[in-house]
């Protein structure tokens, strides 16, 4: 018989699966945009970033500092 702890595990596992699906959808939609592809290539060419993920993560951080400076 399932225990309360089993359900806690199940909630986390389901959240992980749903997040994975969401991440895949967002990554697909963003990376399929030609303007995003172009920006990524330009930024990668500067050799300031390790890879595409690094470009996206650091660009978001820069945007956050610009738009929400108190964060």
């Amino acid at each position, binding site marked *: 018989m399932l225990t*309360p702890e*089993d*359900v806690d595990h199940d909630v986390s*596992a389901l959240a992980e699966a*749903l997040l994975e*699906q969401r991440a895949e959808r967002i990554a697909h939609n963003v990376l399929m945009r030609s303007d995003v592809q172009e920006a990524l290539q330009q930024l990668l060419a500067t050799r300031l970033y390790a890879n595409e993920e690094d470009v996206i993560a650091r660009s978001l951080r820069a945007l956050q500092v610009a738009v929400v400076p108190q964060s």
Partner: protein
Amino acid sequence: MAVPEDIDHITVASNTGPLLSAFQCGGVELLQRYVARIYITPAQLAEFDKHGVGDDIEALVIEGFVIVTSDLSEQEREKAEILASRIAAQPTSGDPDPAGHLPEAEMLVIAARPELRCRIVLLDEKAARAVAEEIHQRFTGFPGILARAGLDGLLTKSGIRHMLKLCRQKGTHYSDALIEHVAETYGR
């Protein structure tokens, strides 16, 4: 009932138990808020029939929500037999005969088919869950779906309590402790 708009729908494989619980408490619609399609094995059709929900499953198959996979290949069958033995050997297994665990073992095997892109399996049976963990197969159970719906504001504490008790009245073993925990921890 508020419907979260940003929820993505996942593809899953399901053992008989969680779908049966969904039928027992009228929770199929709730399942459809998170799940795009459910794969089941051909052998499970007989199990649903045995539990008196053959027509309900057939309706979901026609709708395209439930998809019955192709038969297992010889290699998959061998894998399923090994997994069934491992499930039978679990301390929580109530049946030492591997044959009794073939349905959930077969479901675990088809969930691993890469072309199906199953994100998670729906599985309520303790011994099979232990083996799923050993093979690194992500799993959740029907109460976990209700709990998530509660977190998303779709179900109240009393709604969760009512649904799990309905399942219990119709033969699914959920303890009082589990029902209260899910309702109180996750209900709106």
